[in-house]
């Protein structure tokens, strides 16, 4: 394994994952032998990431805190080739999904993951799911502290948790260490935000009860400031309150957001604090040595401050307008001068958002080896990230990504669409998502126009479960089924930026699939006509309200 700058399994982690593989192998054997009914087997396979979808089994692989080594990414490519159809789908929860797995081969696929210290444990089921993080963690110029250290602590604590493996519903935790939230912490069951108080101490703001789905809610702050070493005690207290009092009578009301909503944030806080008092200073309190040992593994790579203005880069900027646009949209500031964070766009015009072939995964792994300390990130926006690139290497990285089709200069732009797999793959969906995303991205493919429109987030879900986060899209698109016809409900003004997290407002009646692109054109036209200097689409919407958008869209469609 190359010298990674993030957590590496030790003998304990390795043993646990290996034992889990063997347990699952036995469960699959018992299912195939008829010793387990499908009803009994279902929760067992789900907690190993194995779904039964429309056409086949789907394996959902955890990418803890979105961090991968090149070796791990190559192994994912190998698994996609050997056990699937040679490609995979990166999701909004920092997972990789393979959609064509055979049940008999699932234990082998999971064993192959374990070879590179990966797993699919708890990527589904009513338990604590893969903990997500800012995809720029450990590299971002605006970061207070690397959230991945805490994600790894949560990963270990939540793995096969004896008390919380049969919760009322799934449970999602996200952590950010930056004031600019790239992990959407206010729309998770628990969102954790690291911040520094007036005394200079770093601690967590604990936000509970956010979420999307059929009842979207913005989480409430239960704790303004939690000392870091009390994190697990506070999580255990919160989960215990949820496990005991969360509703189980109705699947749609079983998430913690409903509990917080029904009893109120004040009562929830009292309950959690009461549990917490009985756990505080228990064995759950994190020893400083434990935290330090994990934090050491996340030590940044040895980056020497370098030149920020490199002649070759400046020359290419002048000679190649697409490269200049790419620098603006796909390259973010690094904390070490002379370096940058590069986002590889998995959204070339007309492509299904988040898909990558095995060859593309291997290509990205090669680029990471050459230019980014063998490290790759997966973003909740379904892109891949090279977190530590020297500015002088940007032209080479741009060209190499271009050869893979991943150098589209559209990050944060109208074609950088989040979309769930939709009716093409998912048994829950009511409507297709991918073809709608493809149509929009084809229509708006011209880069100069995209950059003129500026930052605009479109998010598409094929059903009310909102895997595509449509509630928090500047433009949200929700597929609905009306008497067998796929229609799309449009909402405006959703946002996950910290401090202005908001849920979108429905524009009006749903439109047919072949009118969605015209509707987006009309929305953009209203914005372009009305925008003031420096205003993003969502800012103009906030200033004008929904009316002018509504009028133009329904006149157009």
């Amino acid at each position, binding site marked *: 394994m190359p010298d990674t700058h993030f957590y590496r399994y030790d003998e304990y982690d390795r043993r646990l994952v290996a034992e889990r593989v063997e347990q699952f192998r036995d469960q699959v054997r018992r299912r195939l032998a008829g010793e387990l009914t499908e009803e009994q087997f279902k929760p067992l396979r789900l907690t190993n990431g194995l779904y039964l979808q429309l056409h086949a089994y789907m394996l959902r692989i955890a990418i803890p805190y979105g961090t991968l080594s090149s070796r791990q990414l190559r192994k994912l490519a190998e698994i996609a080739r050997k056990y699937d159809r040679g490609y995979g789908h990166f999701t909004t929860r920092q997972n990789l999904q393979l959609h064509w797995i055979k049940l008999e081969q699932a234990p082998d696929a999971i064993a192959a993951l374990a070879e590179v210290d990966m797993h699919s444990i708890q990527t589904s089921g009513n338990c604590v799911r893969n903990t997500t993080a800012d995809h720029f963690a450990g590299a971002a110029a605006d970061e207070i502290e690397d959230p991945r250290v805490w994600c790894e602590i949560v990963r270990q604590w939540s793995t096969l948790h004896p008390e919380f493996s049969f919760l009322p519903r799934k449970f999602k935790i996200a952590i950010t260490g930056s004031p600019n939230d790239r992990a959407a912490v206010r729309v998770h069951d628990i969102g954790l935000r690291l911040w520094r108080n007036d005394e200079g101490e770093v601690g967590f703001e604990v936000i509970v009860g956010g979420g999307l789905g059929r009842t979207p809610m913005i989480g409430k702050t239960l704790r303004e400031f939690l000392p870091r070493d009390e994190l697990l005690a506070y999580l255990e207290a919160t989960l215990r309150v949820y496990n005991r009092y969360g509703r189980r009578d109705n699947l749609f009301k079983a998430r913690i957001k409903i509990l917080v909503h029904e009893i109120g944030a004040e009562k929830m806080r009292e309950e959690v604090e009461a549990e917490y008092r009985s756990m505080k200073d228990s064995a759950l309190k994190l020893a400083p040595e*434990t935290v330090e040992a994990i934090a050491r593994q996340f030590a940044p790579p040895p980056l020497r401050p370098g030149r920020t203005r490199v002649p070759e880069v400046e020359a290419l900027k002048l000679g190649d307008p697409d490269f200049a646009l790419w620098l603006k949209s796909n390259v973010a500031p690094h904390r070490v001068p002379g370096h940058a964070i590069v986002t590889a766009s998995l959204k070339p015009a007309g492509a299904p958002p988040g898909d990558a072939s095995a060859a593309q995964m291997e290509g990205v792994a090669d680029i990471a080896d050459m230019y980014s300390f063998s490290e790759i990130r997966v973003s909740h926006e379904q892109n891949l990230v090279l977190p530590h690139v020297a500015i002088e290497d940007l032209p080479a990285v741009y060209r190499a990504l271009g050869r893979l089709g991943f150098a589209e200069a559209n990050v944060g732009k109208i074609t950088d669409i989040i979309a769930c797999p939709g009716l093409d793959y998912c048994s829950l969906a009511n409507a297709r998502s991918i073809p709608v995303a493809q149509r929009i991205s084809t229509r708006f493919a011209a880069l100069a126009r995209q950059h003129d429109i500026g930052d605009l987030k479109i998010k598409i879900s094929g059903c009310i479960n909102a895997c595509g986060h449509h509630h928090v899209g500047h433009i949200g698109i929700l597929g609905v089924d009306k008497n067998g016809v796929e229609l799309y409900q449009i909402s405006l003004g959703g946002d996950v930026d910290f401090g202005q997290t908001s849920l979108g407002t429905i524009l009006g009646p749903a439109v047919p699939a072949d009118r969605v692109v015209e509707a987006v054109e009309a929305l953009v036209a209203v914005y372009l006509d009305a925008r003031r200097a420096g205003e993003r689409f969502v800012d103009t919407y906030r200033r004008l309200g929904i009316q002018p958008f509504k009028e133009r869209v329904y006149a157009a469609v």
Partner: protein
Amino acid sequence: MPLYREGSAAPVADDGPAPAPLADWLGDRRGSAVALLNTDDAEALRPHLAALTLITLHFPKFSDGRAYSQARILRERLGYGGELRAVGNVLQDQLPFLLRCGFDSFESEQKGFGEALLKARTLFSVVYQPTEDGRPTASQLRLLGRRVMLAAAE
């Protein structure tokens, strides 16, 4: 319903007292066995635990995990030391979790349950969470390892 305890793959005889529902038992406090529903508050037994030798916790469905929290509250917070029995829809794949939460007897109709019970404590040689079973967690073992190494280096 067959009853299992660790040590034998075969069901054992249930010769103990019949547990009374919580409200009944609190009413007359007769006998030393109580059956809690998973909506009951285990705290109600706090003043009476010394009088009890058996508490049963209920799994109406194996996927309903409220009784795990009740078990840990009884064992860890209230210090209950008697028998703690899982009843209802109890399946062998739950055993590692049940054991870690403090259950020590189990009613199950599932074939192979006894054999699974014999292996359940060794299915996972590593645990990450501290619970009343007292097993050292991975992070405690790491800490110990580092301290031993440091001591050896001095």
